[in-house]
């Protein structure tokens, strides 16, 4: 990976300074008519990161990606790549390549010519192009299919050609727009693994746009959640899942039980929250103090334990354990886990996800059985609504 394309050599005077991010997005905004698609996004991305932009459709993530690629020019803000503002540069002037959602393979060109397309434009020597194309084709495991046309390939193969074509110019930054959306579930899971392994091996910086939170969790080293044109939270996957910043993020990423709080009472390092649906709940004090607005207690289903009689006292700190009595109202068997919906005596509903660790159903619960759902104060978080 020592030979550089002419285009990237031109940018060599702006060598990355230690500590400076590869990409810095500063207050970028884009308005279509009266619709503010991207509304003041600021974000730093370091070299070698696998960053995911996650959000529901229409949240502005694709517009942001298209501004990075150069297909849209931001109305406000700067986009710095290695310290140079590229916000108004045309797509072909940027050392950035993109993999399109529908792959956008050139139908009149063979696999080989599709991969070589960008290299020819860069003015590479014929022999070097041949070597690079062979290398790329081998990288995405498409040997033997070089002469085929895109319409003679399967969906998965097309996806690989698109990847090879985008990687061939060795961009500083690779943008992937919903790269796996068109693949079926099994193939998607395999490809996720391959993409991660490829990114690690090449040491390249990837930015992926997806609406699939599982995909973002699996692949990305950091995730930026977008909502209505703004970045709602930027965090590593674990933090995003375990410490979401708002109720909206908690609901968007994974399943969650939410209880609206009515009163709060400080008790040392803990808070006692009064809820209408689940009574009083003891929770750990949040890192940022709660404001005056509404708030709720949130707990992930897999952190809710079920038992027949009561909490299994592990450390003897029973006083701090939240205990909710109820009956099983619904059972959803998912193979690896079973999700139980428990109708609480206090009126609310709580979901508990239980791992099916035994093959036989000796410890399964049945409908209308009385159970106790319990969890510790550290298992739940308090979120502003």
């Amino acid at each position, binding site marked *: 990976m020592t030979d550089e394309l002419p*285009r990237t050599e031109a940018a060599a005077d702006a060598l990355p300074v230690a500590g400076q991010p590869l990409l810095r997005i500063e207050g970028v905004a884009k308005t279509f008519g009266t619709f503010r698609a991207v509304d003041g996004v600021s974000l730093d991305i370091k070299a070698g990161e696998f960053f995911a932009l996650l959000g529901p459709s229409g949240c502005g993530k694709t517009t942001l990606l298209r501004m990075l*690629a*150069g*297909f849209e020019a931001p109305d406000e803000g700067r986009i710095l790549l290695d310290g140079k503002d590229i916000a108004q540069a*045309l*797509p*072909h002037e940027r050392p*950035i*390549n*993109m993999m*399109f*959602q*529908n792959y*956008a*393979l*050139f*139908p*009149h*060109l*063979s696999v080989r*010519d599709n991969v070589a*397309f*960008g290299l*020819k*434009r*860069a003015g590479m020597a014929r022999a070097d192009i041949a070597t690079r194309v062979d290398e790329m084709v081998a990288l995405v495991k498409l040997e033997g299919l070089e002469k085929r*046309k895109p319409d003679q390939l399967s969906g998965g193969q097309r996806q690989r050609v698109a990847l090879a*074509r*985008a990687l061939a*110019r060795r961009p500083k930054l690779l943008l992937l727009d919903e790269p796996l959306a068109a693949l079926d579930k099994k193939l998607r899971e395999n490809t996720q693994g391959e993409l991660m392994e490829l990114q690690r091996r090449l040491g390249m910086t990837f930015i992926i746009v997806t609406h699939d939170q599982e995909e973002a969790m699996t692949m990305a080293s950091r995730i930026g959640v977008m909502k209505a044109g703004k970045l709602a939270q930027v965090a590593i996957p674990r933090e995003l899942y375990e410490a979401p910043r708002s109720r909206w993020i908690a609901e968007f990423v994974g399943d969650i039980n939410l209880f609206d709080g009515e009163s709060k009472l400080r008790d040392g390092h803990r808070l006692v929250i009064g809820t209408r649906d689940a009574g009083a709940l003891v929770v750990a004090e949040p890192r940022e103090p709660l404001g005056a607005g509404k708030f709720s207690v949130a707990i992930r289903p897999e952190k809710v334990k079920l038992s027949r009689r009561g909490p299994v006292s592990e450390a003897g700190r029973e006083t701090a354990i939240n205990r909710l009595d109820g009956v099983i109202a619904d059972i959803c068997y998912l193979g690896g886990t079973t999700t139980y919906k428990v109708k609480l005596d206090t009126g609310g509903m709580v979901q508990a996800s239980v791992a099916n660790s035994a093959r036989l159903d000796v410890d399964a619960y049945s409908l209308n059985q009385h159970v106790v759902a319990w969890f510790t104060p550290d298992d739940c978080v308090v979120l502003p609504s």
Partner: protein
Amino acid sequence: MRKVSRLSRFNIASLALGLAFLYLPILILVIYSFNASRLVTVWGGWSLRWYRELFNDRAMIEAAWMSLRVAVSSATIATLLGTLAAVALSRGESFRGRTLFSGMLYAPLVMPEVITGLSLLLLFVALNAERGFWTVTIAHTTLTMCFVAVVVQSRLGSLDRSLEEAAMDLGCNPARAFVAVTLPLIAPAIVAGWMLAFTLSLDDLVIASFTTGPGSATLPIRIYSEVRLGVKPEINAICTLVIALIAVVIVIASLASKLSSSQGESAAPL
């Protein structure tokens, strides 16, 4: 495929009737062009006599040559202008008066030919232009350009915009992206548009008779004026030749478009 070949009696009958309706008159014309008799409606045995006479009829040959030249040049100019108009309309996102421009471009499609012909005649007279080959060519370009634009624009509309974006992403400036990706993909539509313009020009009588001048009659004008004096079997011969020419052009064009879609490398000027 088996199922398709097994047609019901009703289908066979309707197919035969339909084809007969379209092609029986032409078939009769072709057969009578080989008639030995001087009378058009009486069969007098096989002969190539009228073809021989046709080649000695200098006025007719000149008219045919004139028509061919007008058709080739007007189709070429119309294809160039029509393609540019289609690209401007489907790629130039939102310039002022876009709707008005596209409406005006397609007006000749529905305009009666008499009106087009008359208005062009008035224009040429006002400009004091000498009427002949060039005036007919310009008039035919006006007529056929919108047909080319329609054909090319529909192809451009079905083309994925992200293909051009991908080309730009891979280092092409917008013009280069158009030449390297868009042009090869719309080439079949451009060829089809040219063919359409060529045949429209070749058989146009109304506009040509308004815009042509003395001594430069096109084939349809020549045939029409001859027929008014009574149909000579020679007319059958020239019509048969025109039909043969058009058939050959259509076969070549469809072969070419098939070839370009099966091996696209040749179509890509990289």
